[in-house]
């Protein structure tokens, strides 16, 4: 990922910063110029809650260049509570535990490093909801 791309997308990657369409009021992620639901101009910045559920998933053993260090890992389509569907790695989970419908929450993690001298790219992943004492 080029330095410029990394810089431009940092807020959406770090904190799921999307938009809400001012016309049809649906959540949009990632942010864009035109609403994908009603084709009107997209709306003001809106940070999504980061909560959602696994819509589908797969575990990757053959991985793209740059991600070898992390293999194997599980990638999921996550249906966010606000509506958008995002693709992301799951983390802090054993792949045998993953199920469609599993509740997950967003965490900001290291996506990859561009070698030992390049930049470190951070972004959103999802993990099972942290168990909290009652």
């Amino acid at each position, binding site marked *: 990922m080029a330095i410029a791309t990394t810089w431009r997308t940092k807020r959406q990657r770090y904190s799921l910063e999307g938009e809400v369409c001012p016309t049809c009021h649906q959540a949009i992620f990632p942010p864009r110029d035109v609403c994908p639901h009603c084709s009107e101009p997209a709306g003001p910045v809106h940070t999504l809650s980061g909560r959602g559920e696994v819509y589908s998933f797969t575990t990757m053993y053959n991985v793209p260049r740059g991600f070898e260090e992390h293999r194997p890992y599980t990638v999921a389509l996550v249906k966010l509570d606000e509506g958008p569907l995002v693709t992301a790695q799951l*983390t802090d989970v054993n792949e045998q535990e993953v199920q469609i419908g599993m509740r997950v929450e967003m965490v*900001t993690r290291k996506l990859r490093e561009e070698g030992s001298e390049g930049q*470190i790219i951070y972004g959103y992943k999802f993990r099972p909801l942290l*168990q909290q004492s009652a």
Partner: protein
Amino acid sequence: MLNQPVKPVGIVGYGAYIPRYRLPGAEISRIWSHGAERSPVKEKAVPGLDEDTATMSVEAARNALARAQIDPREIRAVWIGSESHPYAVKPTGTIVAEAIGATPATQAADWQFACKAGTEAMQAGIGFVGSGMARYVLAIGMDTAQGRPGDALEYTAGAGGAAFILGPADEAVVVIQRSLSYVSDTTDFWRRPGSHYPRHAERFSGDPGYFGHVIPAAEQMMELMGAQPGDYDHVVVHQPNVKFPVRAMRALGFRPEQWQAGLLVPEIGNTYAGSAIVGLTAILDVAQPGQRILLVSYGSGAGSDAFDLRVTERLLDVQRRAPQTWDYIRRRVVIDYATYARLRGKLATT
């Protein structure tokens, strides 16, 4: 001795983070001594492949924000103390500030003072808030400590830490009644630029290092405040192992029931810049209004920061607004030494 801030300052939100992997001390002993050596801790916390001081700080900061319930754009400094910043040059502070939505009208920088870097950030934050330059400051102590394979410190070099949002005392869950520092040039533990692992001066790191700073800092605080050990409900000091803090607190006149809630090192190891302050978060999870807490950090090189703290009525409202420290401690996945070697980058793959 430090003067007091013009305006009274307190902690308005706090948050902990501890990664989920645990390496038992018995596993390290199995590798390096065929089980003959006895580990100074039960186990230590180990970060995952996708975790570092920046990501762990972000989660602790989000927990602190959830408790403080303030607008992150009102934070005027994001200061992160660590000896394991992901970059040698480029601040962790800007990454964390961006992730929590505190940019652009904020100071952002990294502090370095071995295991005291987090409380150093808190001291500076007291000055910033107490002078009126800032309404809120985010001070974090967080580490992913590296232990040289086979070294005595490999048993304890853990990962974790805590974030504190400092703000006006009248909004605080804990009022900072007084703080002070006690510092000298003492070379007991260090890492030169370009070196991967720190070195240490064996027994020298105990006395005059650890005990030579923790004990006088605590004594000076009690003298200044006209307090006796029995006046505190909780005490928490830096925890490089179990033996050092227990010996120091006993020598100062404290009893086990005063240090029980904050002594986390048997479960998570030494979290370096996070060590004393993650213990403080565990205390705050169970503390009651009116209780008094003594916090003393220690950083090699060397120095201690001491804080006299008083819990307010507001604490009860915020304790459960975010995951508690023991929620993270209980979230444990035990790993073997081979997995540890992989997670901590100790395998040459290229």
